């Protein structure tokens, strides 16, 4: 029998007992559908993260800080009055409370001298007590670190201008109404006051113009006030009023490099900084940790879907065993007419694979339709304030992988009944009543 005839016969045989085939296909469909949705979830979220990174436009900067003292094994660490709390990009960055050696002006010179560093700026950290508008209620707020080249996702208004000499700020969309503004348009162009406690414990007030309203973002920049350079400087000066030790030391510095040179060059720069005693973190590094978590969750979800598929695999075994039983005499006849055991095996395993294909194709198509519909619905309701987030997205490679995976599982399930059919003795089969 030619391979094309084996496939043709197998496909025809699949539809011989329609109800049974449909039920088996349904079981596989459920698994494939679930796997499509869970994989789509991973693809969608990771794609959004990638977009976010692109939107920040900060691929060319890395945060540089002194390496944390490796004193964990040497007992308690001696107090260092100059130690500062280090922070990465954004207020929610992990490890914010770690105390490390501060970056001094000397360090900035050292870093600037390292090959591959285009420019280096100290990262001024400010902590603001409250924000208020025209003497209204005071609200606690965090102020993000300003990274050159960063682009906020704005609900209205404009990006804070890094070059402007006047202090400017973008406030999160959640603060518009509490601060007493009628609308976002009302807020843009007005002035807000930031309260800062200086080094002597006195209250300092800094005013800034609201130029933009930021959407809540995934990595936190949009959840805090985003100042321009002028405002950061003013806040920093206000905060440092009366300070004795820390005026010219910073938790970390921002290094600009050329990402066009590729991964290897970036890694070389990191290694050089590492040798000089600094830790360098790019935006991608920070987001990478986030992606690992997403990937982990998606992996667990996928595992559940695969369990469903394995259960469906037993359905295939069952269906085909019944089929082999019913077609015992037919198998016997084909073998008597000179069909080899291998071809009989091929006939039944192809049938199993075809059932797997049917289930996975239907599952993938409906999964994509349902995923897209749900993703679109959520994008306008639950995730309306995360523009650009398509929760469930699909790429051709992962979709094809699902189909191939399901067909492979179906083939493996089919080997049991197909093996039984292949081993059948033609005489016994023809005698079978």
């Amino acid at each position: 029998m030619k391979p094309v005839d084996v496939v043709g016969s197998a496909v025809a045989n699949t539809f011989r007992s329609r109800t049974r085939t449909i039920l088996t296909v349904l079981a596989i469909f459920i698994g494939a559908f679930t796997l499509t949705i869970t994989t789509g979830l991973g693809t969608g979220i990771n794609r959004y993260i990638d977009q976010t990174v692109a939107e920040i436009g900060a691929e060319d900067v890395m945060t540089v800080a002194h390496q944390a003292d490796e004193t964990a094994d040497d007992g308690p660490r001696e107090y260092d009055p100059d130690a500062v709390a280090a922070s990465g990009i954004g207020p929610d960055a992990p490890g914010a409370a770690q105390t490390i050696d501060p970056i001094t002006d000397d360090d900035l010179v050292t870093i600037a001298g390292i090959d591959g560093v285009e420019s280096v700026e100290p990262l001024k950290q400010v902590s603001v007590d409250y924000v208020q508008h025209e003497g209204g209620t005071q609200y606690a707020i965090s102020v993000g670190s300003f990274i050159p080249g960063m682009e906020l996702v704005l609900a209205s208004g404009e990006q804070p201008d890094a070059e402007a000499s006047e202090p400017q700020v973008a406030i999160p969309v959640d603060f518009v109404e509490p601060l007493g503004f009628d609308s976002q348009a009302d807020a843009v162009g007005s002035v807000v006051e930031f309260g800062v406690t200086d080094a002597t414990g006195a209250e300092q007030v800094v005013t800034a113009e609201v130029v933009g309203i930021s959407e809540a973002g995934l990595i936190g920049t949009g959840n805090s006030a985003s100042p321009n350079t002028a405002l950061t400087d003013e806040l920093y000066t206000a905060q440092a009023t009366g300070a004795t030790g820390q005026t010219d030391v910073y938790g970390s510095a921002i290094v600009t490099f050329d990402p066009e040179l590729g991964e290897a060059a970036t890694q070389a720069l990191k290694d050089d900084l590492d040798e000089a005693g600094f830790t360098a973190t790019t935006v991608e590094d920070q987001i990478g940790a986030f992606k690992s978590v997403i990937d982990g969750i998606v992996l667990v979800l996928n595992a559940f879907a695969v369990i469903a598929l394995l259960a469906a695999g037993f359905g295939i075994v069952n269906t085909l065993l019944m089929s082999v039983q019913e077609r015992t005499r037919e198998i016997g006849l084909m073998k008597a007419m000179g069909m080899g055991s291998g071809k009989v095996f091929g006939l039944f395993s192809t049938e199993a694979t075809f059932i797997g294909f049917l289930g996975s194709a239907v599952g993938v198509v409906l999964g994509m339709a349902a995923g897209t519909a749900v993703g679109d619905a959520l994008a306008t309701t639950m995730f309306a304030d995360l523009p650009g987030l398509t929760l469930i997205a699909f790429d051709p490679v992962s979709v094809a992988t699902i189909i191939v995976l399901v067909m492979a599982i179906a083939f493996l399930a089919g080997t049991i009944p197909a093996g039984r059919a292949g081993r059948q003795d033609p005489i016994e089969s023809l005698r079978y009543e």
Partner: protein
Amino acid sequence: MSTPVLRVEDLHRSYGRGPTRFEALKGVDVEVRAGESLAIVGKSGSGKSTLMHLLALLDRPTSGSVELNGVPADRLRGRELNRVRNETFGFVFQQFFLTPSATVLENVILPLKIAGVGRAERKRRGMAVLEQLDLADKAKNKAIDLSGGQKQRVVIARALVNDPQVIFADEPTGNLDTTTGAAVEDLLFGLNRERGITLVVVTHDEELASRCDRRITVRDGRIEASATATATTAATGEPGRPTEEVAA
């Protein structure tokens, strides 16, 4: 004398081991000559089906030899054996063994499909054989929709489609009424006479056996009598019809 199509010598076939061992054939010698019709008769359990299976190379003997056209069959293995069976033999069974949901044509061309014949050629040869048997108009009908006699004619068409040297018929008329049975018999003996296809019929129907050129009776795993139809008729005292002279 030309080489017989099939020759078995001192054929033994037993099933099982130890105390449950059952000897179905206890030393059988048979020759099937080209172009003859041979009836293998015997009660159920006599070993006649086992003998047919061994002749059709569906089974291997415990001891003894089977020769096909002078070649020892135990030299044939796997693929080669399958090919020989596909090209040399046609099978007609009492229970038809048609795939009920498939069309008549699909059922008929199954041996060609197994042999790996192309789609167009399969259809051409399938239709040709159906026309010979006046079944061309039924080609697209489902096998399940046919009457018993039509089904058996489809089975004969399937046995013929590969242009076999030998047709094995296991109780070909067992499931048919007398009239239809007679028509099927006429068809089989016609093929035997006109196309020289060797016919091996396994039956316990005396009348069918008496129409064959020669008959052998199997009892308890041994051949009891080998005779021409005329001799058999004389032995059983049944009115037989005169048969053509058999080359002996």
